[in-house]
């Protein structure tokens, strides 16, 4: 139990996927203009990331490992992820138009979020078991959603600031992300492994 808690703290804060590990940056920059959309993206990512983390684990443990096909991991994982995402999108679209409104446009973006593949690969690298993989995926997603939401709220503020012209838009957003990552360095060394 304590170990799982540590995994959570580690993935959410200490080794935050976005700010420390540099994964999932494109949606981080792309879907953070408004707090509402950022929250929607966070929700969608959390769902897909956890699910695909588990699915990739299964594919790895029951298909690739037994057959000695480790080198096909990337292909197998990305295929799994793409299918999970596509499947989720189609199901949500049909069954819950409401939810689709909130999450729909973000779902296709998630396939190309490298955090998703990153989690799957890191799970293998860290030799995480089934539950650990799920927690790892979930933690990574929560960390992603957390900083995404905070970032979106800050960007909403900066949008109105008197930023020098050359820096308006993505430049100042990147500087802000840099300062956020600076703040996150405070968590460094919190978990000594």
């Amino acid at each position, binding site marked *: 139990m304590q170990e799982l808690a540590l995994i959570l703290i580690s993935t959410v804060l200490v080794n935050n996927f976005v700010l420390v590990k540099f994964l999932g940056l494109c949606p981080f920059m792309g879907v953070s203009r408004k707090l509402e959309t950022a929250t929607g993206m966070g929700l969608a990512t959390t769902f897909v990331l956890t699910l695909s983390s588990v699915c990739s684990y299964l594919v790895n443990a029951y298909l690739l490992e037994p057959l000695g096909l480790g080198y096909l991991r990337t292909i197998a994982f990305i295929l799994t992820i793409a299918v999970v995402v596509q499947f989720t999108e189609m199901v949500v679209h049909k069954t819950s138009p409401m939810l689709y409104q909130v999450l729909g446009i973000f779902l296709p973006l998630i396939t190309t979020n490298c955090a998703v593949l990153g989690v799957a690969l890191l799970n293998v690298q860290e030799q995480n078991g089934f539950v650990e993989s799920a927690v790892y995926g979930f933690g990574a997603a929560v960390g992603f959603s957390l900083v995404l939401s905070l970032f979106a709220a800050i960007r909403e*503020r900066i*949008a*109105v600031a*008197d930023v020098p012209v050359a820096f308006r838009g993505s430049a100042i957003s990147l500087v802000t992300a840099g300062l956020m990552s600076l703040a996150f360095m405070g968590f460094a060394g919190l978990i000594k492994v």
Partner: protein
Amino acid sequence: MGKAPHHLHRFHGGLHLPANKTLSSGSPIRALPIPARLVIPLSQHIGTAADVMVKVGEPVLRGQMIARAQGYVSVPIHASSSGTVVDITDHLIPHPSGLSAPCIIIETDGKDTAVDDTLSADHTQLDPSELRNRIRQAGIVGLGGAGFPSFIKLNPGTNRPIATLLINGAECEPYISCDDRLMRERAADVIGGAAILKHALNATECVIAVEDNKPEAIQALRDAIAQRSVSDFAVVVIPTLYPTGGEKQLIQVVTGREVPSQGLPADVGVICHNPGTAAAVHRVFALGEPLISRIITVTGTGVREPGNVEVRVGTPMADVIAACGGYTDRAQRLLMGGPMMGFAVGNDATPVIKTTNCLLVAGGNELPLPQAPLPCIRCGACVDVCPAKLLPQQLYWYAHAKDFDKVQDYSLFDCIECGCCAYVCPSHLPLVQYYRFAKTEIWNQEREREKADIARQRHEYRLFRLEREKDERAARLQQKQAALKTAKGETTAEDPKKAAIQAALERAKAKKASAGVMPKNTDNLTEAQQQAITNADERRRNRDSSTATRSEDA
């Protein structure tokens, strides 16, 4: 009187402001002479403007109705003195926009002849609905603030029983002392009016709330109540704190209850009226006089003889100032209302209206022009003073960003525009103006959205109609072609469309002005639209003889 001292409550925030009231409150109310010209705007209240009843050149008497109420939220307008209507035209009105609006202009004859009295009555003999009717016919609107037609407030509906009639004698704005003088000198009128209002509302008590910086007024009111020996009237002395006079704040101070956001005082069983309104109601029933004059504080170091004057509605401000000794050399700015809520008037030819409670002529550096603003530093000083418990800095932030959804998330429409936030802001931001900007912009967007919806519907209907017509035409064409096959005619190489137009023009020439053609595009016409067509045809028929100016309203 004789009741246990009222338990008072507090509202959030508020300011202790320099009062500056003694400038005007020292001398008794003076009646101003009748001006040579009265400029009477058709809209002096919240709601639809009144509808003109008189023609240019027509003589009018004092108190004569010259414009009738139009729709429910509207009251009539009366001539403030006798004379002749010399023009009905756009004229500057007191409004922050500085724009002009339709006004009736009367040249007075100095006789001040009154029209026949149809209003006075013993109010105890009338039922509430008749009371309301007379109050409406007398053109009474709130004299304390927005100028809301008072008769509507007296009709809160059966599901909202009114326990308390609250007379708002707070007069919390600096400089203003008209209510103070009124309550001191005409306390009996105020109490009399309050009794009528209370009767109309069937309220159980009447509370008159007065700030503790007006001891004379408090004494006068207490005496008047004692004289009438009514037991369900009470004068409550409240601490001086701006903006206690705000209706919602006053209700909280006196009753401890909060008027719901977007709600009405009646929701908590209270109706709030200004003492001036009460006195005006009293005059309706006692003297049969509609609302044609009011008491105005003329003050500031820019005017020679500050004081309180009773002025006819429609008197140009220049005349009022002149009657108060005129401008001093230091006169710099002219405000209607107090320094916190009032607005700047650019031109003193603007007339005084029913809601003009104060003319403040600021002299020298009394009210300096605003300093250049700095960006908001989010210090939160504004949050501490906002009586509506809003977050003024966030409202500012989003109004500045023109994010109108967000400002509404932050309850923009609960802002009472009291100006406390701007007063304490270290960055000197014109906060209230941002809020006003956002509010009017939102209303405008709503109007546009409605228009766009209509346009979309009409466009879709048109597409549908065209589609249908095309189908019909296709069907007809088929028939025709079938017919053509049998009897072959000669064809021209000309563009058939052009030919059609040519033909149409020729036909038009031929059968000019003849009736009996079936109009096109007449599906779905409303009555008004039908009327518009008829009018257009009418005008056309008159074309040759007509020399009149083209009026815009069809």
